[in-house]
């Protein structure tokens, strides 16, 4: 347990007090761009801290959905509420998103982290920073320009930068795509510890094994609609929708 608490230098992770960010409640969410409905009337309610895996074929709208519920995109219609409150800067400030293609600042690894740290009124910044470097295995690369890091190192830095913001909700958009097995393990380890500290995680992945390892519940998105929302065990053993079953069996979905 003490090991769990030592992760990215945030003592606050454990003793999370005050209002929880949940539940997330999405009603009739539609997102239309260039005349195409990318999401059409999505209804979803996430109530527990369980790690939610968001699955679905390419182009299903997973990334768009994350952006919408994080407040980076304006819905065409519908309603999104976090603990009853509409989206706002304050809500976004309590969340962090690791993008599918992370954008790192053109600075050193350390400067990327300290930039994020400087955004919130944290005390004890330098200790947090060193801790985050150590936890993400980037201590040796701290003074390297972030943009010359390998893909896996960049993913790790993007995750570390998100965690250093001490979010209550963490969105991860395919955080281990293109990584080698060791890096995948490392990141999954981090995710597990963050989950244990009480952070609500919504994870997008195409890796069914990863989803099984980490997921507690699964939301399956298909053609802009939620076609299934069930506990992970149920989803993987007895998918309720034909689309999810086809997807899990490797059948191409159009």
């Amino acid at each position, binding site marked *: 347990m003490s090991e769990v608490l030592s992760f990215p230098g945030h003592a606050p992770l454990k003793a999370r007090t005050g209002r929880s960010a949940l539940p997330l409640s999405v009603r009739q969410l539609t997102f239309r761009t260039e005349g195409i409905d990318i999401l059409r009337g999505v209804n979803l309610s996430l109530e527990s801290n369980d790690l939610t895996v968001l699955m679905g074929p390419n182009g299903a709208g997973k990334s768009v959905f994350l952006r919408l519920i994080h407040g980076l995109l304006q819905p065409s219609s519908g309603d999104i509420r976090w603990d009853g409150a509409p989206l706002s800067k304050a809500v976004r400030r309590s969340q962090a*998103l690791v993008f599918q293609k992370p954008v790192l600042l053109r600075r050193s690894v350390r400067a990327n982290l300290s930039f994020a740290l400087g*955004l919130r009124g944290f005390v004890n910044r330098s200790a947090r920073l060193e801790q985050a470097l150590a936890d993400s295995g980037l201590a040796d690369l701290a003074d390297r320009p972030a*943009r010359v890091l390998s893909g896996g190192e960049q993913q790790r830095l993007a995750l570390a930068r998100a965690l250093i913001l001490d979010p209550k909700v963490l969105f991860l958009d395919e955080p281990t795509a293109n990584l080698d097995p060791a890096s995948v393990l490392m990141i999954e380890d981090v995710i597990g510890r963050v989950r244990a500290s009480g952070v609500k995680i919504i994870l997008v992945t195409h890796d069914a094994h990863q989803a099984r390892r980490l997921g507690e519940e699964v939301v399956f998105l298909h053609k802009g609609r939620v076609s299934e929302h069930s506990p992970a065990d149920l989803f993987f053993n007895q998918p309720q929708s034909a689309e999810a079953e086809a997807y899990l069996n490797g059948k191409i979905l159009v």
Partner: protein
Amino acid sequence: MQDFAHSFVLAGNLILQADAALVEIVGLSLQVTATALVVSAAIGLPLGAILAIARFPGRMVLVVLSNALMGLPPVVVGLTVYMLLSNAGPLGVLGLLYTPTAMVIAQSILITPIIIALTRQVIADLHQDYSDTFRSMVVPGHTAVAALLWDARYSLMTVLLAGFGRAIAEVGAVMIVGGNINHVTRVMTTAIALETSKGELALALALGIVLLLIAFAVNGSVALLRGAERSLVRV
């Protein structure tokens, strides 16, 4: 052409002997233009960055304006500053006409639009990269501006060099507001104009060569500075 070869010999001699008049003129040129550049950068960099990322009514007007003003004719700037600083003008009491300060003002007016317009483009491009990340992290506006300026610093150096080049090579405006007074407001370009009008074409060209060498030296040292860092930081 004989004048041409002669000019190179003359330029070489002027430099090798560190000709006192030349040193004074070159010194004043650098001083005036460096000051104008500092002033323009202090105004133009933040303003350009704000124009790049802020959305407010009238923004497009300002963008078009700064782009258009890049082509300001120096003589028009010179005349305008002259009319302001003249004893018959509104700022005559300051007694700035025919001083290096007047030249700094003219050059600043000349290159600030260049710095604004080019900075806006550079920052807008980088912001396209950064904007989602910044919005996700809820980065306050002023922090975003500072971060974008810092991260675009290599491109912005080129922007500043463009401003420097235009300012130091400019003659029309500084001639009018500086008066080309010997030992007071004579800079490289006005000296070149003067020597040309005396028919001292070889000397004028020699001064032109010195001006070119200075431009090379300034650009070269910036390139070195950049190169040293680029070997570490590749975009």
